[in-house]
């Protein structure tokens, strides 16, 4: 009927969290190889993660590092080699050079293009299909109508995020560490990381006197996310009606329990929508989701505007 997926960075989070609302799990944090025991950078942990997910009847997708420099290609290659010997249901890439590496190494698993793959057009989707890509995550700037257009005109699966903070920009280095006392003494990735990203960090630009817009962004170190949480819980009927089937909840940077609470709400809302049942009252779900979103909710770019607006069902 539909697939609901989310992301989990490492084995500890996978074992301790409740991801039962999801049909599939993207394993790994594609933004930071230094993230503790990150599946994306620890080949020796892949088999255990995969086994855990498959044992629960879910699909397991492996995320590869999104912005490898030349020095990263060797270890990314090692992760790929390990992954290709395991029965992953798909492998996600964000970098076209890594996509080429996958093909060179004989990858026969489905390949997904991640959020930083710069997918804006059906013509690009067609090029990527020739390289083995079966699913794309269209750039978050695209509207729902454009996403559907790409799915239909490239005949390809599209991943549609329905909740969570939108990835806005990624870095090759850690912004948190660079601006800490430790960062002044040692470069990121050289053993100096003390995982300060376990604390929430925010970028703010606002003045109480109204002279500037009141803006906020969440920073996870190597990635900046939207301050507000994308929320499409009121629009399940529309998503189902558009023929979209692969939905996703962003979990990166969120507290334990976030993915479970959000997943339960969307599992229920989407099942109702796909069964053609009346949507019911969204107020309790919205209250819960709003309580998990420090800076409020938004619809991203889905309804053809800048990313911060929220448009209700009415």
């Amino acid at each position: 009927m539909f697939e609901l997926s989310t992301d989990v960075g490492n084995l500890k989070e996978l074992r301790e969290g409740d991801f039962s609302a999801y049909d599939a799990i993207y394993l790994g944090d594609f933004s930071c190889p230094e993230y503790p025991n990150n599946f994306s950078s620890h080949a020796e942990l892949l088999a255990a993660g995969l086994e855990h997910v498959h044992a629960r009847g879910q699909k397991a997708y492996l995320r590869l590092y999104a912005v490898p420099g030349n020095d990263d290609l060797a270890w990314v290659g090692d992760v790929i080699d390990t992954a290709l010997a395991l029965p992953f249901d798909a492998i996600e890439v964000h970098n076209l050079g890594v996509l080429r590496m996958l093909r060179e190494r004989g990858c026969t698993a489905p390949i997904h293009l991640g959020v930083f793959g710069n997918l804006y057009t059906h013509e690009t989707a067609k090029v990527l299909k020739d390289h083995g890509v079966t699913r794309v995550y269209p750039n978050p700037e695209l509207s729902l109508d454009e996403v559907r257009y790409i799915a239909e005109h490239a005949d390809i699966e599209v991943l549609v995020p329905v909740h969570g903070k939108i990835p806005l920009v990624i870095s090759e280095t850690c912004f948190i560490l660079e601006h800490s006392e430790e960062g002044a003494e040692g470069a990121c990735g050289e053993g100096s990381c003390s995982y300060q990203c376990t604390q929430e960090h925010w970028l703010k630009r606002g003045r109480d006197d109204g002279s500037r817009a009141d803006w906020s962004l969440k920073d996870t170190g190597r990635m900046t996310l939207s301050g507000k949480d994308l929320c499409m819980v009121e629009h399940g009927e529309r998503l189902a009606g558009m023929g979209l089937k692969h939905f996703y909840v962003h979990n990166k940077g969120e507290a334990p329990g976030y993915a479970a609470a959000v997943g339960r709400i969307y599992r229920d809302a989407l099942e109702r929508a796909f069964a053609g049942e009346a949507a019911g009252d969204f107020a309790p779900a919205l209250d819960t989701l709003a309580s998990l979103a420090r800076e409020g909710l938004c619809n991203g770019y889905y309804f053809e505007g800048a990313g911060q607006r929220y448009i209700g069902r009415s």
Partner: protein
Amino acid sequence: MVPPRSLRSLPPKGAQASLGRPGARPGAKLLAPAGSLEMAHAAVDEGADIIYVGPLGFSRRPYESEMSDDAIREAAAYARSRGAELRVVLNTFPTPYDFGRFVDKALRYAADGASGFIVTDVGLLRALRREIPDTVLHVSIGSGISNLADAAFYRDAGADVIILPYRWDVAEIEAVRRASDIGLETFLFETVQTGKLCPGKCIMSSYLRFRDWKEVEGNRDFHGSANRGAKECYRVCQANWEFGAVGSDPVEIKLRRDARLMLAQLPAFVAAGVSCFKLSGRERPVGMIRDLVRFYRRAIDEVAAGAADLGHHTAELAELRVRWVREKAKRVDTLMDRAASYVS
């Protein structure tokens, strides 16, 4: 008419072009901005091998720094008459609906004398290679290339030239040279490897605000963002933000450091295989671009003649850097204030 100077050390992917046309200067080429006809003339007059122009709404710049189709035709004629070439920047991402219009525009510019294009979208790259086999296709910085495997991918996809990240050193350039025969282009900038990646991996600006072009361009049927040709990127990364962990005192901070004009690297970069140096600045004053093209023309010619040390230009470079930064600071504040004033 004087034969055009050629960038290429490689034939276009789909054509058997000659290596270095008659009359071409030896060595690496200088690619200069043309944000207006006046700037196009100045850049050509000062010795740019190639100028690049952006059509209104298609090249990631405010409309004041882009050009009408008539002006592009005139700039192409001026460049060709003086032995230079013209590239057209089509480096916004098309919306799916708008894809055909990008191809149509490219065909028109090619007929009007454009010798190549600077593009971002992989699908557009393939379409232009198919439709205009003998054109020169540059991959824009907006593609966010980060490694030598990317270079090989884009060569396979039909590109002739890639722009390298600001941050790369000589060893990395040599490595990509060994991995692919694609042409290598670098900005005339240097920077340190910190902060956010831009452009190519950033949509912060459109998350906060954007405005479409409609009132300027007529009836384009797309919805904006700087990546897709809305009026402008607000340079979010260069404005001051308050940054900190929840519960701690924030610090005021910019999201990345500014790049600065470079020079000393030129001889080593050329030896490592860089075939084209790109000067940005379509939005800058014409006088500044005129002075910069003149400066880098001299430097590149000296390198072609065998110079290994450009230290005698240090004082002039310092002065140009000051002018560059002063002008940029004014622009960043203007953009963020403009963004804040819009209704989302």
